[in-house]
Structures are given as structure tokens and as C-alpha cells.
């Protein structure tokens, strides 16, 4: 049966009727599968949550042990059956390459295959296995950077910009705005890969998730909480990471001669960077850029593409040009929050 007859957009989010299962719901529900731990996908208060073990650990770190009544950790590539025994839905998770624990969701029902990409990217990222091409009839793709203006430069190029700035403005504390989950650790790894071995300083809000990444044997090098630094003037010429919301608040005023840096895919658009009063924008994204979105659609080659989560219009239009049947799937609750870009 065609997925349009068993999948719909409800108030809480995308709903699979025969499995009685929501995908990344924004309101508390009985049964949910969560693709990854970002707040615009993972919420607390569900009865039963299916997710990767890493995602469950992230949710517990953020929302506490009681974040759901019941949890089921799923292994990538291992199917589970849901719904009516005689008319089941088979669900399998596959890697999405977005952040630690991120997955795509494959739902199979009455001979049709539907893949929900969640958020994904195609670039190298040592914190998670790479995005896997999963053949399907309907592919629901995100479109956070779904416009041809978005082409993300290589990570090493952007890290170089930061290191060059550090050399030129060697007396300035480089305060880098990074989203706590994923972006923060990716910037740290990028710095380490570029040979930066000095300690990196962290705002308190980033600490717990970095600890969690390290528990998963992801090497982040020496991290020091800013709060443990008695003499803040010693942070001149150092790299401090903080959540974007802390860039302009009171907290940052204690740092010496701050140079404001921000790591996000949105930083490619000048006005966006300036709206945040960023002096050094770094284009570092955990999502696909435009060429990668097109490449993925081409490679998955589904019968139909449904586009959600961002700039749907352009990607629907382009998918049509490429010969795919495509439509926008508008969902409430998914904010194109610049912090997760």
C-alpha cells in the first residue's frame, strides 16, 4: 500500500498509522521513534521511545533518566516489527551521518518502503558512521540548506580560518558559538585534526555532552571548563567554546578582548552573521549542502521524494527537474532554528 495511505502529518508530527508510531514527535505521545538527539527532534515525556543507544543516552543526559516511561535501544540495520502481528510494519534504523547516534528510519508496510532521513550529511565525521543509501519507494528528506546558494566549504578550510585569526589576533580571546550537541564536538575534532593541541575551554552548558562523547571513546583532547579558570585574562589568545546564546550575554563580558566567532551553516549568508554581530563566521554544518542533497536524491533514487524541514520549495522544484515525483511535507514544530544549522 502506498505510504500516502498510512503516513500522515498530525499535530504532534509525522505518524505511521498501522504501527501507531510517531516519528520525532514534538508533543508527548504513546510510541515514538527518535532519529537523533537535537531538540527539534527529541522531546521528553513519551511513553515508549525507540532510538539508537547513543540517542537514548543523549536524551537522558539532556532530559534526565526519566525522559520516557520505556525505552528500546535499536541496533542499526536490525529490523523490529510493530503493529498488528498479521499485518506488521517493519522498522529498521540506518546511519544518517549527522551527529553521534543519528539515524534514518526505514518503515516497510504491505510491500512499500518509506525512508525518513531525519537530519543527515555526507561529509566525513568521526563521531558517527557515514550516511547509508537505503533504497526505497518514498524518501522523506530534510532541506535545511535546500537552496543552490548553500555550498559548504571543507571543514579543514574553516578551521584554518580560525587558526589564522588566532595567529593574527593573538591577544584576543576567540569565543566560538557552537551548538552543544554535535557542532561543538565537530569543531573540537576539526581543531585536533588540524594539529591544535592546546587545551580548549568550555562554557558550562557544553560540558555534559562533551563528557558523553568521550564516554563513547571519541577523542576530544584536553577540555577545561571556563569556570575553573581563576584568572580570565589568561584566556587571551585561547579558544573558548560556548552555546550561541552565550555569545552576547553577560557571561562573555568576563573574557578578555573577545573576538566573536560562530560555527554554523547559516554563516554563509552575510546578513545572518552580522545579525549576530559575528566577526568571524565559520561555515560548519552538520547538514547536507545543496549539491549533497541532489547527490543523495540521485543515489537513493526513490519513486517519490517528500521534502520537509527547511526550504522545501526549491528542493521540490529541483527534484521535479531531475525527474522525480516530489512534494513538500509541511510539518509544524520544526523550526529552522539557526542554532542547529
Amino acid at each position, binding site marked *: 500500500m502506498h505510504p500516502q495511505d498510512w503516513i500522515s502529518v498530525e499535530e504532534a508530527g509525522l505518524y505511521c498509522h498501522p504501527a501507531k508510531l510517531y516519528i520525532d514527535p514534538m508533543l508527548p505521545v504513546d510510541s515514538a521513534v527518535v532519529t537523533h538527539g537535537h531538540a527539534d527532534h527529541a522531546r521528553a515525556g513519551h511513553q515508549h521511545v525507540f532510538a539508537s543507544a547513543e540517542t537514548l543516552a543523549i536524551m537522558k543526559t539532556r532530559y534526565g533518566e526519566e525522559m520516557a516511561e520505556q525505552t528500546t535501544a535499536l541496533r542499526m540495520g536490525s529490523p523490529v516489527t510493530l503493529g498488528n502481528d498479521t499485518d506488521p510494519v517493519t522498522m529498521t534504523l540506518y546511519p544518517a551521518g549527522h551527529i553521534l547516534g543519528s539515524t534514518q528510519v526505514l518503515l516497510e508496510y504491505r510491500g512499500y518502503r518509506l525512508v525518513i532521513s531525519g537530519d543527515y550529511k555526507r561529509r566525513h565525521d568521526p563521531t558517527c558512521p557515514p550516511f547509508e543509501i537505503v533504497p526505497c519507494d518514498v524518501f522523506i528528506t530534510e532541506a535545511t540548506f535546500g537552496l543552490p546558494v548553500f555550498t559548504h566549504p571543507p571543514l579543514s578550510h574553516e578551521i584554518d580560518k580560525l587558526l589564522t585569526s588566532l595567529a593574527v589576533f593573538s591577544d584576543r580571546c576567540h569565543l566560538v558559538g557552537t551548538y552543544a550537541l554535535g557542532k561543538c564536538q565537530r569543531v573540537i575534532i576539526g581543531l585536533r585534526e588540524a594539529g591544535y593541541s592546546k587545551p580548549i575551554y568550555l562554557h558550562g552548558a557544553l560540558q555534559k555532552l562533551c563528557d558523553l562523547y568521550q564516554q563513547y571513546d571519541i577523542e576530544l583532547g584536553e577540555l577545561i571548563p571556563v569556570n575553573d579558570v581563576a584568572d580570565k585574562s589568561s584566556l587571551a589568545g585561547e579558544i573558548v567554546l560556548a552555546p550561541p546564546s552565550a555569545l552576547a550575554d553577560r557571561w562573555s563580558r568576563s573574557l578578555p578582548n573577545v573576538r566573536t566567532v560562530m560555527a554554523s551553516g547559516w554563516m554563509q*549568508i552575510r546578513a545572518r552573521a552580522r545579525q549576530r554581530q559575528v566577526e568571524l563566521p565559520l561555515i560548519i554544518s552538520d547538514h547536507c549542502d545543496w549539491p549533497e542533497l541532489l547527490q543523495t536524491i540521485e543515489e537513493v533514487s526513490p519513486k517519490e521524494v517528500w521534502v520537509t524541514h527547511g526550504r522545501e520549495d526549491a528542493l521540490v522544484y529541483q527534484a521535479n527537474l531531475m525527474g522525480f515525483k516530489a512534494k513538500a511535507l509541511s510539518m509544524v514544530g520544526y523550526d529552522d532554528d539557526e542554532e542547529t544549522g
Partner: protein
Amino acid sequence: MEAFSDLLEQLYFTSGTNAKAALISHYIATTPDPDRGWAMAAIAGELKFDFFKRNTIKALMLERIDENLFAMSYDYVGEMSETVAHLWQPETPPSGDVELPGLNEVVDTFRNAKRTEVKPLLVALLDNMTASQRWALIKLGTRGLRIGVSARSIKQILANYGGVPIEEIEALWHGVEPPYTELLSWLENKGPKPDISDRVTFHPVMLSHPIDDDTREKLAASEWQIEPKFDGIRVQLVSAPAGKALFSRTGDDISGSFPDLLDTIDHNLVLDGELLVMHGDKVDTFNQLQQRLNKKKPSAKLMQSLPVAVMAYDLLELDGESLMGLPLTERRLRLTDYIEKHPGERLHLSPTYSVTDVAALEKLHQQVTEDTAIEGLMLKRKDSTYIPGRPKGLWYKWKRDPLLIDAVVMYAQRGHGKRSSFYSDFTFGAWEGDTLLPVGKAYSGFTDEELKKLDNWVRRNAVGRFGPVREVKKELVVEVAFDAVHPSSRHKSGVAMRFPRIHRIRWDKPAAEADTLESVKGLIETA
């Protein structure tokens, strides 16, 4: 070109006047002539020709990308140069370290290029550039550099660089031309001061501040000269042995549009006044003046049906003598004297009023602004000398209270520049029976916080799309403030507003209670 592009990139992301000035000074000190002079000219907005047209860029881009994808990208980015900078893909990837031509070479190349050569030149450059270099080139070539450095700041930076008072730069500025080699060599003590005595030059004008209630209530009325604020445009008329010119208040030479006015002046002087369409003594509306302003080469018929004149309120120079150091009262006497001796239809003396106390001033404001052709009052200290720029406490403007209506938001579009990627341009309408007719567009008046709320509201309440324009549910009422409203045959509603801005967002007010088109028409100005 690399150095210039780097400078722009850094200026763009640097906030704070001092930090920007430091970057520019460093660039001047380390960049050779004539590149550095062209850079100053570009930043100060002194380039007098486009290297290429925006349409040329767009046409080249559309040879390389689907039209709809371009439109969607432009709509999102909100700015043509940046959209193209990101979308441009070199036909063949740049081969390693190609050195770009210097800024002077780029300027020269485009200035001397034949029409047919422009496109290939541009393509060759864009192909070898990074996205931010492409952005810089397009900004430069279409004279669209807006990086928060004013012409005045450039003059200040040059003054500091040479250790001379800014007044000296101000006085020279409109007599020297890019790439300013002589000026820079003088500032570096390597050459003589440029001689501009034989040029027809613009003299930077003195500007006023809006008056606040506090200042107004404490005013010693007898110390002030009070003038009506006409609804025209501020001009400077210069007539010298070397020639004649009419300048806008920013120093643009607009002589070409007003030969009928310049022909009537044959005296050595510099006059400050308001340009108006006048039939004898009768002042016509701004709407009519607009028709003259739009014509670079007016026909004899237009000049006859809409004759322009200057309502003079200041005299800066007469017969080669500078009057700028004299107090206003004395300049006024000289001006009155001159106009009395040279009567004509093209030059009028702006009236003045005198009041003895604040109460009388308030009454005067009320009376004067009953005439919809008057924008308000100008208050000038009688002892003020003529100081270019916007000195504090000497000249004030007291505008008429804005007109207000409650209108319903109908369409929204993403903004440009600082507000790009947010829905920030709103078309609003008034009721005619039970249909709404658009009466204006506003893109300012709200705070950043309100902007985010409006953007969010639009995204949640969009019902249709026409290209970049989103139609929204007819549910949100905004209080719109504007300076005037004119009849207009170009708009379906029959009206056009002047300077509409959003005064308040009426989240609480039902759309049905917004104003009618009839009440808007009741506010139309009459000549």
C-alpha cells in the same frame, strides 16, 4: 583586487567605527597609488560610473542557473551580489594561484571597455575569484558598497592619516577626483596642497536634528529664527566664473534635470534652499516635483508645465566672499538684500516667523502644518554660523505629527541587507466594502524582536505565493504612520503614501475594525 576584497570582508564583519577606521588607515598606508585612492572613492560612494549593470550580472547568472532557482535563492539571500557570489560556478575551476588584476587595472579595464567586451571581462574575473571576491567585485562594479563607512568617516580617516583638520578635507573633497593621488601625496607630506580654486564645487551642507519635547519646552524663543519646512528637496545652487551647478544635499550633481533654473542665475554665489515646483508664488505638491526629479533630460513642455524654483534660506558665498563664518542673522540680511535686488520667478526668499515664547511656537506649528504642503518647522539659532555636518544644538526640525491609520497586512516579502532572510516588507490594505485594497508598503518601524515575531507570524499564516511574495491571512492589523498621502493612478486603491512605517502592531485588533479606504483618502494633501 585581493587586498581590496580582503579589506571589504573585514570591514563588513567589524563593528565599531574605530576598528573600521584602523583597518582603512592600515590599508591606505600599505597599498600603493592609485589602487588605494580608488578604494577610498568606492567606499565613500564617489565612483561616478557603473562598471557593469545589475542586469548584466543577472543575465550572465541566468545563462548558468535555472531562473526559478535563481529567484528562490535571491528571495532568500535578499541581495543580488551575494546571491550571485554564491551561485557562480567557474566554467573551468581556477588553475591554482592565478593573481587577480589590481583595483586600478579593474577600474581602467571596465571604464575603457566597449559594450560588447564587458560580459567576457566580467566572466573571466568571476571565474577566477572566491565567493567573497565575487561579492566585492559586484558591489564595487554596481556601486552598491554599503559597509557602514560613510563618506564623512572616510574624510575623517584621511584627515587623521595626514594630521590635518577635517574641514580642510571637506573643503577640498568636491574639488579633487579619484584616485586622489595629489590629495594623498599632500597628506603624506610629499606634495603641495591640491589647488581647486577654478572648480565648481559642492560645499557640504549644515543639517538639523529632530527636536525632542524637552528641548522644545525649554527653548528661549527669541533666540531662534523659525522657517516653514517645505515639502521639496534640499539643494545647493553654485554659480562661479568656472560654471554653474545644482547639487543635492549629498553633493550629487543634478544640474542636468534643471537647465531652466540654472539659466536664470548669472551671479557669483552659493545658495542653500528648497527646490520646489512653483507657479508664480504658488507652491505645488511634492508629487509634481517628483516628475521633474525623475527626468534626467526634461522636455520643454515639462519644464513649462512644471517650472521649478528655489526657496532660498541661506547664502554661503557671494561674489567670492565666504559668509559661512557669519551668524545666521547676518547671512539672512545679505540673502534678503540679494533677492530684493535680483527679483525673479525662480528665486524666492523663504519666509521666517518670530515668536516670543514656547506657547506661541506651539500655536504656530499647529497653524503652519494645517497646510498639507508644509512638512513642519525649522528652528535655527540666530547666532549660528554655517557648520557643515550635523552640529548639535544649532538647527532643529519639528516635523508635523505623522498621520496614522490602522491597516491589515496582506502580503509579505523577505527584506534586504541587514534584514535579509526575514519577512520584513509588508503590504497593507484598507477596506472598501468587504474587500481590502493595498494602500502601501512598509519595511521599518519595528524592533528586531518584533521583526522575529512578524516573520514567524507570516510563516505560520501564509496562504499563497506569487514569486517571492507571500500572501497571508487577512488577520493582522498594524498601525501605520506616514507623512502624507497623494492621489495615484498607478495604484488600484488610488492613493500613495509617503514614508509609511509600522508604528505599532495591533496583535489584539480584529481586522474588520481596520480603517476604510475612504478615511485614507480623506487625508490626501491638497495643493
